[in-house]
């Protein structure tokens, strides 16, 4: 019975995804500018959150450095924006973040997880201080002006990054590496004894996730005409993906997407009405989610669904 349902499910889902993708790709043609801008923000947070979940989800190593990699991407865009075409700049932004993450990983992922958390937590503040010092003492000016690009271009670039990320995340998850990452999260010592080079795998996956965060930063920099260290290295960008992933649920790939979409929209909605309250509210939601929603929204829905479908059979 299940197998029949399973066979007809697959092409249906793929078809649905394709339809959604096409409508998203063509949306600048029919949707309002405001919607396109909002969608860009949503995809930005989806990219950061899914990247974050790609590493921290299976392994359990909680990275608090998302803002650092995003900021590196922003600054790459700011520094190279005039010199090179945007696609190159985005790739370089991703590459620099990748290298930074390799360094961080090589340093901390050989040790207990707590060092990783502490190091990544301070990384944002470190980069902020360093670049501030650099700008005051070496370049002489604070902040940079970024060459602007049309909203539609930014949207498409972010959409393409999103698609590439989803393909990467899907491939990793369903490959032997995804299995290995999961086993590292389950029991790292046992994984090492099954022949898995745990440090290398953790570090490379962490670096891949950082790559996409850097690329996203490089793209978004073009939306702000002026950036400075405080704008680029904002702890909120480390906080939001964690909140979105926890709220959405980290078990499946679409959990973080739902979380990101919900919270980006919420942020847009609240930032205009309650500019000082929205961070407070998000903080409260984070605490509540950790207390009461350990498996996230997706987990909750799965549990409810299970309960409903089980009770159906219980009656017979």
């Amino acid at each position, binding site marked *: 019975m299940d197998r029949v349902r399973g066979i007809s499910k697959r092409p249906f889902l793929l078809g649905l995804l394709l339809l959604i993708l096409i409508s998203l790709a063509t949306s600048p043609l029919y949707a309002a500018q405001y919607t396109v801008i909002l969608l860009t923000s949503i995809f930005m947070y989806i990219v950061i959150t899914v990247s974050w979940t790609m590493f921290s989800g299976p392994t359990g190593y909680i990275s608090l450095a998302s803002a650092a990699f995003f900021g590196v991407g922003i600054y790459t865009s700011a520094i190279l924006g005039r010199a090179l075409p945007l696609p190159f700049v985005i790739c370089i932004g991703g590459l620099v973040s990748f290298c930074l993450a390799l360094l961080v990983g090589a340093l901390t992922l050989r040790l207990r997880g*707590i*060092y990783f958390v*502490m190091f990544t*937590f301070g990384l944002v503040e470190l980069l902020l*201080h360093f670049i*501030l*010092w650099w700008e005051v003492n070496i370049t002489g000016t604070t902040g940079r002006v970024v060459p602007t690009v049309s909203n539609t271009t930014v949207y498409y670039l972010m959409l393409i990054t999103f698609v590439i990320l989803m393909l990467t995340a899907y491939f990793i998850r369903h490959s032997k590496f995804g299995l290995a990452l999961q086993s590292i999260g389950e029991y790292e010592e046992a994984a090492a004894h099954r022949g898995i080079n745990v440090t290398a795998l953790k570090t490379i996956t962490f670096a891949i996730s950082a790559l996409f965060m850097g690329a996203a930063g490089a793209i978004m920099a073009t939306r702000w005409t002026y950036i400075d260290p405080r704008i680029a290295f904002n702890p909120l960008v480390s906080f939001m993906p964690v909140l979105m992933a926890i709220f959405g649920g980290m078990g499946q790939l679409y959990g973080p997407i739902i979380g990101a979409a919900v919270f980006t929209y919420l942020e847009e909605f609240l930032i205009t009405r309650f500019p000082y309250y929205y961070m407070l509210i*998000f903080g409260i939601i984070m605490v509540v989610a*950790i207390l009461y929603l350990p498996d996230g929204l997706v987990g909750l829905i799965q549990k409810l669904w299970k309960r409903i479908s089980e009770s159906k059979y219980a009656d017979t």
Partner: protein
Amino acid sequence: MIVRILDVAIAGLLLGGIYALIAVGLSMQYGVARVLNIAHGEFIMLGAFITWWLYTMLDINPLVSMVISGPLVFIIGFILYRTLFTRLRASSASPAAFEGSSMLACFGLLFIIQNVAILIWGADMKGYSYLAFPVNVGGAKFAANRLVTLGFAMAIGLVFYLFLARTRLGKAIRAAAQDPAAAGLMGVNINQVLALCFGFGALMAGFGGTLISISYKIQPTMGLEYTVIALIVIVLGGLGSIPGSFIGGLLLGLVGSIVTYIQPGLSLVAYYVIFMLLLLVKPTGILGK
């Protein structure tokens, strides 16, 4: 020449005294209560703002206000542990799971406390002047408030050390730090002790905040930097070692003073370099197990 060295050295101790205090606080919270409180800086900020408020509104001497700011922040920390973290501990599948979820809960607290402060006091910098006159120490000039700060930091550290070493409650805390389960079996009310430890950590943060506000300007976003510094200090001193955090704080303060003398603005970078060296060579730190 000697004057300059003395200058830098004593400035280092002044900075280090504050670092030592806040690091001991974080060490209590992580080493004993097992909560990596990344919102530690926000508690420091609260201590600073309560003192500022009491001084500018009610003319209360900042050193005296420690009697209020410290305990107030202690109570907040204690209640938070009793409600939030005790509950989290009960529902966590393993100690590792609790460490992760409690840390994330602190991340949420960070934004809650910081933004409540912004809503109450506004986002801009505040400051006040207290004992700002210079004092002559062996040829070098230091602000009186800084010397007083150092004195108080040392005094608090000493009192706390005696508390841990000599009193019954202190022994219970040390037992809980070694082995919570065994301590529980020995009749120690583990939930109460852990909550007290977390509270004591917040107390140190409150005191630290007060002392900071005497010498420096404050703003609601000041906490993050201090949290990062405290994290580096507890790694330097050795995770789980409270005396290590104290020594590490003094050491790092010294480093900060030297770096500020050579190249101001790079102190956090220097701290991170030390962090990286530690991770490469001796992650267990000076006094770590």
